[in-house]
């Protein structure tokens, strides 16, 4: 996505604490990666919401089409045997 006169768009991901995944926080505009990181710091971590930031150019994200939902996710739907509750085992069985 090229922008008329402004900066390109970036997606921001923040790790709020050690041991936790980076999570999408939002987006922002910045001229380059360095500015994107600085802006993300100012915009999304003003109250110590993060210990680590990822920025990714928005146009580098490949997304699935919501209209493909059926064909994309249906194959998982009839595979109930992938869940532990599918198996009926004796009640006296412990630790399983």
């Amino acid at each position, binding site marked *: 996505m090229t*922008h*008329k*006169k*402004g*900066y390109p*768009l970036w997606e921001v991901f923040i790790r709020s604490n050690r041991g936790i995944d980076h999570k999408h926080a*939002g*987006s*922002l*505009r910045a*001229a*380059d990666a360095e*500015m994107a990181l600085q802006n993300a710091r*100012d*915009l999304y971590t*003003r*109250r110590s919401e993060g210990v680590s930031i990822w920025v990714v150019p928005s146009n580098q994200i490949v*997304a699935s*089409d*919501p*209209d493909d939902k059926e064909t994309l996710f249906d194959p998982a739907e009839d595979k109930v045997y992938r869940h532990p509750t599918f198996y009926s085992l004796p009640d006296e069985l412990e630790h399983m």
Partner: protein
Amino acid sequence: MTVTENSPTLSENEVKFEELLAMGAKIEPRDWMPDDYRKTLIRQIGQHAHSEIIGMQPEGNWITRAPSLKRKAILMSKVQDEAGHGLYLYSAAETLGADRTDMLEKLNNGKMKYSSIFNYPTPCWADMGAIGWLVDGAAICNQVPLCRTSYGPYARAMVRICKEESFHQRQGYEIMLTLSNGSAKQKQMAQDALNRWWWPAIMMFGPRDDQSPNSELSLKWKIKLFSNDELRQKFVDIAVPQANILGLTIPDKDLSWNEKTGHYTYGEPDWEEFFEVIRGNGPCNKERVSNRREAHENGQWVRDAAIAYAKKHAEAALSKAA
């Protein structure tokens, strides 16, 4: 996805959209949505973003003159938050296909509006108290339900904003409290600020329900969850006891507790004034927009330089790789 006007898939899309709304599920950026849903959201989110950005001016006006270093630091933080709120909201609008540069241009040339409240002047330090207490307070009444609005990115932006607004309101109320407990002159400053901001704050909720043509569709689409008058009532019910704690008098002679409804009855604001401010004839409309335009133009060389720098370094990285 290409769908022609009369194709049967259109109604299929509509059915799916209505189903999601009925379930209370969020609409996300790549979902099909009616054109008017998209347009309404872009207008509302855009106006909201502009309000945050223009809203920096009345308070920015007092940063250099705050009465202590503590108050100065707090006020700077608040104004910086408002800039952040604007940016979250521009991002949300962009997920609908709006262009940020475009929206800012429309703000700068008066084609897009912002909240009428920011066209009132802030002649006194006590106005910083009244704004935090009443203006941010009214904004909170408006914005808390918007955390459940049907469009995902808007709802998520509002969650973030609401978390930060609470500090805004509390610091404002604390200013009012300090002044109210001060000398007679200081208490009078607080009362005057309340007199200045009460009616504009009441009008922040927009025209009366019977005068608000856009509301019905927004309610149906769950963009709005409460009507203007419902939100206004909620605000009055919350603010009156808060004024009592301050020992200040709300400048409304019709204000009274209604035993039957369990709500305060309040007077009619001057809607003539409201529409004049909306039309661009409020006390500070011209100043706010021209400050904004000037800041934008004066920053152009910085943006140009940053883009040129980024381009140069991207090219250098490419040729190194080649």
